[in-house]
């Protein structure tokens, strides 16, 4: 359920109705920013939000995104090391 996609807020279009322009991969759509407008609206410009049915529902936390990606990288590297060790062990066995 609940198709949502990250979009960047590029401009505030209607301050009174809390509307802003969001951009997803070069496609623009006006969205309501009520759910993410805690401070000054202008501060939203440049920020990324999760867009669902014409509403910016949640600001994307860039630090958390980076942490998730880092965990993935660590896992990949750990496996590579294991593979290299396994390959090294196999080579040793062959020689013996």
């Amino acid at each position, binding site marked *: 359920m*609940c198709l949502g996609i990250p979009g960047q807020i590029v401009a505030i279009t209607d301050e009174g109705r809390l509307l802003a322009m969001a951009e997803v*991969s070069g496609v623009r759509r006006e969205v309501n920013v009520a759910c993410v407008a805690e401070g000054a609206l202008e501060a939203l410009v440049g920020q990324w939000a999760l867009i669902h049915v014409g509403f910016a529902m949640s600001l994307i936390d860039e630090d958390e995104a980076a942490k998730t990606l880092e965990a993935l990288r660590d896992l990949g590297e750990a496996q590579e090391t294991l593979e290299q060790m396994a390959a090294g062990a196999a080579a040793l066995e062959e020689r013996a």
Partner: protein
Amino acid sequence: MALRDERVTLAHGGGGKAMRDLIEEVFTSVFQPPGMEDQARLSAEALTEPGAKLAFTTDSFVVTPLEFPGGDIGKIAVCGTVNDLAVGGARPLWLSAAFIIEEGTEIALLRRIVATMVREAEAAGVRIVTGDTKVVGRGGCDGVFVTTAGVGVIPPGRVMAAERVRPGDVAIVNGVLGDHGATILAARGDLSISSAIKSDCASLGHLMEAVIAAAPQARAARDLTRGGLASALNEIAEAAGCGIEISEADLPLRAEVVGTCEILGLDPLYLANEGRVVVFVPPEEAQAALTAMRAFAEGRNAVVIGQAVSAHAGQVRMKTALGGARIVDMLVGEQLPRIC
């Protein structure tokens, strides 16, 4: 200039002077050669070569809005029929054009549509040789409907048919997918999305001729109109009785098309195109076919997207970017934007 009205009225369909003025000023005087009659009389010379075949096709065109970035209904009406002929291996020669016009349609709009058709026909090397107009009351149709029929000739010995596709044959498309579909979705306005994308609408007669010259064993081609690449591939798989395997990583897609699909929950494989074909050629001719395509503006981004296989006969499968597999089925109905 006898035609003073700004908009088409029912009088323009009444068979009197108003109708004659409309037809002469907007249509016959613009189409070449001037002085077009109800019935076209054409030299049959091209058709009399022993072994040559006559190709004959017709298609009706409706699109909302009538004008959109990259084209209009007139351009689609010419390109669509030219491409229908071309993918069957025919050299397109003549078109007919019939218009159903809703009362209230701007005459300036009609002129623009006709001008596009003339320009596009010239580029495609075909002649619009006969036509017709009817006017219907408001609500009787949506603006303008255009029907074109096309006649072409298939040179002796040339056979392009889906049944000829064999396992191992390579599938090539002539460019990025879904531009037309994504453009129309945005241009309709009801979804309030916008982007810089333009329709891919183009005539592919010259391109197909060059591909067949470079890859004489080319098996089959399909234009990727309604239902997109997915539908065309399914038709071919079924007709050929073999499977087709494509690779997600190789699909050429513009960022804006991906964005449109992500926002609306659509699959680009099913988006309509108006200037895209998939061509199946034996592997040894794939490079020649690609090179031939890339010499054309509308083939610059030509790329191999997959091949026919002996497994899963009649079915299209896609290797996902992660190495998984997914069946690419025919659509049950129209693709609708979704929220879930």
